Every structure is written in C-alpha cells, then in structure tokens.
C-alpha cells in the first residue's frame, strides 16, 4: 500500500529529553492520540481503548530504546479501515541492536510462541514482548527499518475495527 494513500490524522514531534522525562508521558500521549484516532470509527470508546493500548506499548518501547538526544516523531495516518502509526526514533548502537533483533524475531513469524516464552521467562522483561503482543493480539503488521544509520522507522498498520467487533 503506497504511503500517499494514507491521510494524516495527527503528527507530533518531541525532543527525546522531553518525552523521556516521565514514564507517564507514554500513557498520556497514547490516551490523547487514541481519542483523536477514534473519531469516525464505529464505536469510538472501544476503538480508543484498543488504540491507546497499542500506542502505549510502542511508546514504552521507544522510551526504553532510543538515543539520549534528538527528536521522536510520530504520526497517525488513516486509509479506510487501516490506521497507521509511524514512528521515527533516534538510535544509539544499543537501541539499533534492539530494533534489529526485534525485526528479526518478527520475521520469524512465530510471535505467539515467542510471546508465551517471554511471559514466563525469569529476569528482565524482554521489551520485544511488546511487538510480539501487538502482532498476535491486535493483528498489527509491523515494519522496522533503519534510517541514515542513526534512527529507526517503525511502521505499524492496524485494523482495529476488526479486533473491536
């Protein structure tokens, strides 16, 4: 699907320092944007609840994996029943390695098994669990692409009307 087919609903750029100043920013942004994104959907509160769950998970991932400086940019776009969340995250080598590993795991096509294992694993939370859950529970199509050697683009396509009904 060509990008030109998608219309912008909302765009937001934030300095990393501002975004990463408080964990609750993830929840607040997700809640606000989800309300915007739910306008025009069949059942807005239900849609908003699903959308905020997805967006919060993505924002929590980039909260944990990003460069200390730069700007986070994200957009919500729409084409018919598909909503797209497009995120651009400045990355340091550690964050790049995380996203590369996440991309490889998503390509393996067995997100459900990976998710179940991660749920029961001891020790630190593997934040890739967020991606696997979006793929399995919300039917998200996730593309992770490195850009210019110091940033990552995340494109997440969602058909949440189907999940909601």
């Amino acid at each position: 699907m060509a990008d030109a087919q998608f219309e912008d609903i909302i765009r937001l750029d934030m300095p990393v320092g501002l975004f990463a100043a408080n964990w609750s920013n993830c929840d607040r942004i997700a809640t606000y944007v989800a309300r915007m994104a739910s306008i025009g959907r069949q059942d807005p509160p239900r849609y908003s609840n699903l959308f905020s769950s997805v967006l919060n998970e993505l924002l929590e991932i980039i909260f944990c994996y990003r460069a200390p400086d730069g700007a986070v940019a994200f957009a919500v776009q729409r084409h018919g029943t598909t909503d797209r969340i497009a995120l651009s995250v400045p990355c340091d080598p550690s964050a790049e390695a995380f996203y590369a590993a996440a991309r490889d795991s998503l390509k393996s096509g067995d997100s459900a098994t990976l998710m179940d294992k991660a749920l029961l694993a001891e020790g630190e939370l593997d934040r890739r669990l967020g991606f696997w859950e979006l793929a399995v529970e919300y039917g998200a199509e996730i593309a992770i692409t490195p850009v210019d050697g110091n940033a990552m683009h995340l494109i997440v396509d969602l058909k949440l009307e189907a999940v909601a009904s």
Partner: protein
Amino acid sequence: MTEPEKTIRRRHEQTAARPSGQGAGRGFAFHYDENNQEFVLAGVMTPQDTAALAPMSEAFGAAAARLRGTMFLNVKKLLRVNVCGFRELSRLISIACENNPELAIRIITTSVIAWSSRRFERLKSVAPRVEVEQYDDAFYPGQGVLEDTSFVPILRTQTKMTWRHERDILPRHGLKPKMRIADICCGIGDFAALVARTFDPAEVVAVDHAQGSLAYARKVAAELGVRRVEYVHGDAASLLLEDDRFDFVTCRHSLQVFDRPELILKELFRICRPGGRVYISNEKNSHCLGEPRADSIQWSYTEVARLWEHFGMDIELGPKSRRLMMDTGLEDIRMESFMVTNLDGDPQDFADVVAAWESVYVDRMAVERGDSEEFIARFRKGFHDHISAALHPKGYAGWPIWVASGQKPL
C-alpha cells in the same frame, strides 16, 4: 490494613513509587474482598517496572497463599495493562497455583474491553486450574430475550408509541438544544435518533450491550441521515464513559430489567455533569388495563409482575423511581406518568406490541418457569383480551409508564 473489615483496599498511583515522585499519571486500583475471595483490579496498569506493582503483588500473593477453593480475579474494569503489568500478573498466577495446590483461579473479564478476554485466555497455559469467564455473556436475567434481534420490529413500534408522549415530556425534565446527551441501554437506538432529530443536541452517545441491536441502530441512523449519534458497545453498570461528561443522561425501560438497578443509576450519576439531569422511564405492568374484559387483563398483568420477579427483574419498578433516584444522590426529582393507549395512533400498533409481549411472557418465560397448561391458557387469555380491547370499536387499552428525572448536585 483493615483486616477487621476483611478487606484490603489501597489506591496505588503507578508513578508514586518512582524516586522522583513526579508525574501523577493515571493509576490503577486494587482491592481484595475476602468474603468473596475476589481480587479486583481496575483502571490503567502501565508500570515502568514490576517494583511499581509491589503493593499489588504483595496483596495478591498474601491472599492466594491462604485461600482454599476458587480465587476470583476480577478485571472487568481493568481498562489497559502493558506488557510489564501483564507479565507480572502471569507470574503471580503461576506462583499462586504452584504454591497452593488447593487453589483455582477464575479470571472474570468483560466483552466491553475488546482485548481483555482473548488476552487473559492466554494465562490458562501459564498454570493449571486457571479459568476465564466473560461475565457479561449472562450478566442480567432477561439478557437472552432482550438481546434477541427478532424483537427489533416490535421495539420500534414501542418507541413510536412512547415518543408521542415523551417528546413533550422531555423538555419538562430539562432537555434543551445543544446538550451533550447519553442514552444508556439504548437498545435499537431509535430513541437516541429521535432525540438527535428533535432536540438539536451537541452530541448523543448511545450505549447498549447487544451488538445486534447496535448494528441495527447504526444502519437505521445511516439510512435516516441521523448524525451526531455514536452507538457504543458497553455495560450499563460499568461504563467506559468519562465522569461528569453529559448534560442529560437517559435510561429508558431498562432499570426494571436488571437485578441491581442501583448499580446502573450510580453510573448514570457518575457520567452526568454536576447540574445535569438523569432521566429514567420504567413500567408498573400490573397497572396495564383494558375494557372490555378488564378482570382477565388485570389478572394476566399481575402475573407478569410475578413472572418477572421469578427471573430477578422488577417490572413494577416505575413508581419506585423517586426513591431510587434520591438514594443515588440526585436532587430536584421530577416525576410523572403517562398512559400509552390504543387511541394514540393506529390501534393495531398497540395490538402488535401486546402480541409480542405474549410471545415473550407466555411462550418463553412462563414455559421456562415450568407453569402448568391451565395457568398458561389463562395467562395467554389476558393478552388476547387486551388485544381485543385495543381493536374493539368501543374498547380502550392502556400501558402506563412512569418517568422521573433528578439533578446531579452542583
């Protein structure tokens, strides 16, 4: 900890445990009700790490360790949980079942939160003796009947008959143009559509639990070009709508269907803004009347009241509205009644509605209660006599309805 009350209840702001103590983000609440062996989670659980959940984890572990039988994990009002929170819940459940072989855990979800049941089903593989129950599959007594879409045509006729009265009554209860209106238990949505067309509201949000009714409502609204009505899936006793959002909140012919109407009134109160009004309508079916054959008609409708009571519903609720509203904390209660009759419009409409009642009350409910053939024959005759009264050239048939409204204190 309030052990004497056998309740552990704490409010936990997820960011409060962070060293900075800043960012009072939306939190979640948990409490444990020892009497019901129920651990309740509500709100938005998005911790940064499991340390932020320590008080909840500790309370859950303590409760699970000393229980026998089934522990209920109620997540009906858990609006959102991130992977960190969900993983912690998985861990707690797994440990609880491993350490206490006499414990089973039943997770109570709701269809209203679209992700909830499917996601929690996954925890059945985490540990043995874990079950998931979607509580609103059967959460009020008349659900099977009322969410049956075969009754859609007759529900439309009913609204047509009551609307003749209510369009004049509603302004007396405070409905004005440009208001934000919620219609809770909207059914097939025709009342919300009529309100939208007649009263020029700023918005109408119409909520019902029956997806079939909502689909019908959206279709009809689109066909009629009615805009500004959002039809939303929801549970009247646990709405996802914000506090203090609406100027006018309606709930028609529905409190009488639920076994705990006070829970719904509490929600209507919550979503109404201070100074706004809550408007309800209900029946007292034993006061349905007709001539000729008044005695037969009255007998059957008195039996309808008993029949509903048998199934945990109160079709006599109408005149109790004032007390219920006052008990909820509403003020300036206004109350009146009106009689839908065969003279209001086409008498055949009245007769069709009574025939639909006969189908539900006699053919379904009385049969399900196990009533005798003799009873069913007499019971049915009352409805036939009511239909005859409605269609008789000199007859009169009536269906009384009580409306009440109250103001949320400023």
